[in-house]
Structures are given as structure tokens and as C-alpha cells.
């Protein structure tokens, strides 16, 4: 149907208006207002040009695409539903604007990442150094003059030394946790049985005096980052060893079972367990369910486990009962 000059002029005007609205929204407004206008503009444009039904279609598609929170998907659905050529032009132009915005955001994130990198580098050295001095000089004082101190004096020295060691461990664990968030994940087939054997050997070497009955099943091969998975398993096994300390005979079971396209690996122990009503806090940073005087630790180990598993697209959870042990589960994609 040939369009009259008046109609063409109106369509051009609407398309320009849509582009201008999108441009203003992008540069002048905050992200929420901008995105709302981004989808409002084509809807207005199509409604004016083609009527209410196509406008409603676009509005519905935009609403569905919005929840996908993916720029390409959003624009694809808009592009497909907007069959009017001028609004299609407006939408494709808006894609250009949004791509530019994405590039800016990416640049901003890269700069923020570099700043964080520099910050963690400083923390790694500049914050550790005075703590190292405190611990080392306390030890030197103990070796050189410890015999001249009374029991109370030696206790103070030991406290200074131990506190410095705890603070150092905290910094190292925090740095490890931060590092996990940004390191690139390198997936390859990982033999979990081999990882567990290695982790178990380390645990036995660290606590040779303990009586621990290990019940380890054959574990599958999964797709994952081997060093990261090792860190996660090490934290779980170290926790099991720690929290079974009050037991004359500790029992630690490690096994797996399939679960809907994934494999669930579990580490179960007969240790002191935990109160399940606080189970949700277990995987959070600095959250502990036992006093420091009962069981040492920084409260970051399980947060590290959760982060590793999340980076693998899996999930982690725990079950337990006070005095009756605990079980920790990780679901991971299968090879």
C-alpha cells in the first residue's frame, strides 16, 4: 500500500523521536529509567503507526525479554515483532547505542577490576608485613627471653603470636576467596577419585595422631577446573577432620550419586554436627556456628566451597544435627 508523503513524514518523525528518546535515556538517565524508555519508545512508535495490536505484541515480547536480562535476546525479540520498517530502524539504531553503552560498562568494569587487583596486591603484601613482624618478633622474644618471663608473660606472648597467625590466615583466606571470584575457569575432565585421594593424603599427613576411618567410594569424572575443585574438596575434608576431633574414632565418608544430569558429591562425618536452623548461614563468609575456642577457623572455608561450585554452575548444601555429624553436598556437571 503506497504511503502518502504525510504518512512517511510522520513515520520518519516517530522513528527519529524513538531514537532520540533512546539516546537521551542512555546518556542522561540512570539505567532503570533508560531501559524503561528503551522499550516504551518502540511501543509508542508501533502503536502510532500500526495500531494497538502490534504495539501490545511488542510490549509483551519486551516484557518477556526484559526478564531474560540479555541485551541480544531483548533486541532480537523486539526486532522480530516490530514489522514496521521505521520502528525496526529505530530498534536497530538503539542496538548500536546499547552496544556503545555495553562497551562503556565493560570498560568501567575492567577499570574496577584493575583497581581491585591492585588493592589485593597491596593487601597481600602491605597488610601481611606488620602482622608477620608481630608474630616473628613475639617468637624471637620467646626464644631469647622467654625463660625470664613468668607464666602470665609467656601466655601473653603466645596470645600475641597466635593472634598474628590468625590474622594472617584470615587475610590469606580472604585473598583466596577474592581470587576465586575473578580467576578464569578452565574446564577439563577431572577424576574426582584422584583429587580426593590426594586431599585425603594431605589430611592424614597433617593429623597423623588421629584415628580416622575413611570410607571412600569410587567417584566419577566430571567437567571442571581441577585446582578449584581440589580447593573445594580440601576445605570439606579439612572441616570433617576438624569437627570429628572430639570423637575417639572419626568416620569420614566420601561418595557420590547421580542426580538429573549432574553428579552430587558428598562428604559426611560423625563429628559434632550443627544446628540445622542455622544451616543457611554455613556457606556465607565469616559465618561460624561454633565458637573460636571450640574449633579454630576463619569462617571462609565453606564460602570458598560455595563459590567454586557456583562457578561450575552447581550448588552446595548441607545437612546436620547437633552431636550427630554433618554431610556436605556439591552438585557438579558430569563429563
Amino acid at each position, binding site marked *: 500500500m503506497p504511503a502518502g508523503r504525510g504518512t512517511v513524514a510522520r513515520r520518519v518523525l516517530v522513528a527519529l523521536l524513538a531514537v532520540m528518546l533512546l539516546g537521551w535515556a542512555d546518556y542522561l538517565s540512570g539505567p532503570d529509567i533508560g531501559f524503561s524508555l528503551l522499550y516504551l519508545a518502540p511501543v509508542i512508535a508501533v502503536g502510532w503507526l500500526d495500531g494497538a495490536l502490534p504495539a501490545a505484541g511488542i510490549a509483551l515480547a519486551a516484557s518477556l525479554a526484559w526478564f531474560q536480562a540479555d541485551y541480544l535476546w531483548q533486541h532480537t525479540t523486539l526486532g522480530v515483532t516490530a514489522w514496521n520498517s521505521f520502528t525496526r530502524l529505530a530498534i536497530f539504531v538503539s542496538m548500536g547505542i546499547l552496544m556503545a553503552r555495553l562497551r562503556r560498562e565493560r570498560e568501567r568494569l575492567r577499570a574496577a577490576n584493575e583497581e581491585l587487583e591492585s588493592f*589485593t*596486591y597491596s593487601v*597481600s*603484601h602491605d597488610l*601481611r*608485613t606488620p602482622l*608477620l*613482624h608481630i*608474630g*616473628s*618478633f613475639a617468637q*624471637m622474644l620467646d626464644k631469647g627471653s622467654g625463660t625470664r618471663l613468668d607464666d602470665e608473660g609467656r601466655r601473653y606472648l603466645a596470645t600475641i603470636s597466635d593472634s598474628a597467625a590468625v590474622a*594472617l590466615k584470615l587475610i*590469606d583466606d580472604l*585473598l583466596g576467596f577474592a*581470587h576465586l571470584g575473578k580467576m578464569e575457569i578452565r574446564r577439563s575432565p577431572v577424576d574426582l577419585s584422584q583429587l580426593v585421594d590426594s586431599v585425603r593424603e594431605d589430611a592424614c599427613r597433617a593429623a597423623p595422631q588421629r584415628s580416622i576411618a575413611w570410607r571412600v567410594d569410587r567417584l566419577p569424572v566430571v567437567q571442571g577446573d581441577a585446582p578449584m575443585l581440589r580447593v573445594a574438596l580440601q576445605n570439606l575434608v579439612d572441616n570433617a577432620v576438624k569437627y570429628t576431633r572430639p570423637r575417639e574414632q572419626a568416620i569420614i565418608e566420601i561418595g557420590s550419586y547421580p542426580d538429573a544430569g549432574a553428579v552430587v558429591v558428598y562428604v559426611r562425618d560423625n563429628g559434632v554436627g550443627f544446628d540445622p536452623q542455622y544451616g543457611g548461614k554455613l556457606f556465607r563468609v565469616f559465618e561460624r556456628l561454633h565458637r573460636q575456642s571450640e574449633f579454630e577457623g576463619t569462617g571462609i572455608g565453606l564460602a570458598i566451597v560455595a563459590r567454586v561450585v557456583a562457578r561450575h554452575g552447581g550448588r552446595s548444601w548441607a545437612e546436620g544435627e547437633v552431636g550427630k555429624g554433618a554431610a556436605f553436598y556439591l552438585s557438579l556437571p558430569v563429563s
Partner: protein
Amino acid sequence: MGQSCHVLLVEDNPRDVEITLSLLAESGLDLEVTVLHDGGEAFDYLYRRGEFRLRKPGPPSLLLLDVRMPKMDGLEVLKKLKADPATKRIPVVLLTSSRQEQDMLGAYALKADDYVVKPARAEQLAAVIARALQRAAGPAQ
């Protein structure tokens, strides 16, 4: 190690110097230690320049090098040492508070003999130094 080994300790922080000297004394190794406070001083010593022009000739047996130092950091010092035929055979052990992976990887890529993260124990330091000295002496025998 038959005779006393001459170790250059390159470290800018006086407290770290004191701690390391204490560990070396405790290590049981027969060492003569010269303390230098930054990379510039280290190169003046090695090339017998400036205040060190009258020192007795001969390279040290080993360098104990901190990473984080002002002006020239430990990795830059290591790079220069390994680039010069006159100094590249001197074993270098990095002794540092830095747990940063990039420092460790950088150190090994630049052919450092070892990398020790503080807090170090005397036995650990002794083992690392002994190993580095043995490796350096090996090919010459």
C-alpha cells in the same frame, strides 16, 4: 658446603632484615651475610661500584631477595641479574611477604631458584638455601 658461604640479603625493611638474620643464625648453616637495602645497592655491590668499589672481588654464593622494594622491585633485580652473563649463575632465592600468584609465576619464569613466602621457618630457609647452593655447585663438579 665446606667453607663459609657468602649470602647477599637484599631487603629494604629493617625489621625484616632482623627477622631473616635471626632465622639464618638459627638455620645452622655456615654463612657470612651482607645486607643491602635495595636493588641499586645490590648492583653497586655486585659490580664493585660506588661505596663497594674496594670490596674483595668475587661473586656471592647466593642472593636472598625481597620482592617488594622501592624503585626497583625484586623481580626487576632478578631479570637484570639473569640477563647479565657475569651475574646470571648466582643462585637467587626470593624471600617475600607477597602471596600473589603473579609474583611467584614471574619469579619462576625469570629462573629464580626458589620462592619462600614469609613467615618462613629456620629449617625451611636452611633447606631452600642448601638446595640452591647444591644446584649451583653441581654442574661445575
